[in-house]
């Protein structure tokens, strides 16, 4: 089947063919047996599909649809606010803890150095992961493609 034949067949099945296209289609149908059998198959398949429809959900579903979307958007904003607040509080407590640690003369210098290196390592790791994610998001040409 070439492109023109597919085009004519689709337009005819869709009942959107112009009189000229209809004429061309009918001529093709009477002259070409392969085309005729393709048409019969497509027509029968379309009839089977036409006899079915997608199930309708209950009417009440539509009344609650927007409310559901709205609630979920609102909850998303709430979670962002909670996460941000938690992060700010955690950062503040971390600074307080660091100040206390370094002002406390009873803690050995070696422990202070160890904790400093540990915190530095964690921060570097977080920075590296965030940078990688941002870089991938910004420059990955194939991010929309399903893998």
């Amino acid at each position, binding site marked *: 089947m070439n492109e023109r034949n597919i085009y004519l067949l*689709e337009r005819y099945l869709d009942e959107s063919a112009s009189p000229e296209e209809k004429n061309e289609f009918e001529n093709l149908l009477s002259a070409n047996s392969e085309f005729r059998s393709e048409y019969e198959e497509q027509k029968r398949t379309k009839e*089977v599909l036409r006899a079915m*429809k997608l199930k309708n*959900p209950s009417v009440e579903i539509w009344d609650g*649809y927007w409310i559901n*979307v709205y609630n979920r958007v609102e909850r998303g904003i709430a979670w962002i606010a909670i996460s941000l607040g938690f992060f700010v509080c955690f950062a503040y407590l971390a600074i307080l803890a660091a100040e206390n640690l370094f002002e406390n003369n009873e803690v050995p210098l070696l422990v202070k150095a160890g904790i400093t290196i540990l915190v530095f390592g964690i921060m570097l790791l977080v920075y590296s992961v965030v940078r990688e994610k941002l870089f991938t998001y910004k420059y990955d040409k194939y991010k929309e493609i399903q893998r």
Partner: protein
Amino acid sequence: MAEFELLVKSNMKRAYYAALGIMGSHDTAMELSQEAFIRAYRSFKNFDKTKKFFTWYYKILRNLCLNFIRDNRKNVSADYLEKAQYTSDETNPEKTYDKNEACEKLENALAQMDFDDREIIILKEFENYSYKEISETLDIPIGTVMSRLFYARKKLAKKLEGMLV
């Protein structure tokens, strides 16, 4: 938010039915169509208002459906079709059984098809989109829409052998 509310309300049925046809389950269609609206809201500032909202929204929905199928490692569910019209045959249990069986066969045949083939059949045959609407929604030329539909129906016919009289 009022503008977005209007967009959701005027597109929710199309969104739901498109997702239902692709995923085959009421719950999944509800979940994914709503999730797609939430994502659309988050990126609403990127939406070019000179274009059709549904065309833009559908791309988000389509990606969510593909991700869902990939992550859940399963294909579409069944039991989402019904006969298009009730006729006097309904009183005849034998005919009713035949029609239910036909729904089941068609659901199974569609479930076995590739995502792209199933999608285009759902949009054209169940959602009654025009070739132009499908072309805009899927971002492909009208000629490609026609040939994809033709070959998708051909594959479906093969799966429905025996059912086509």
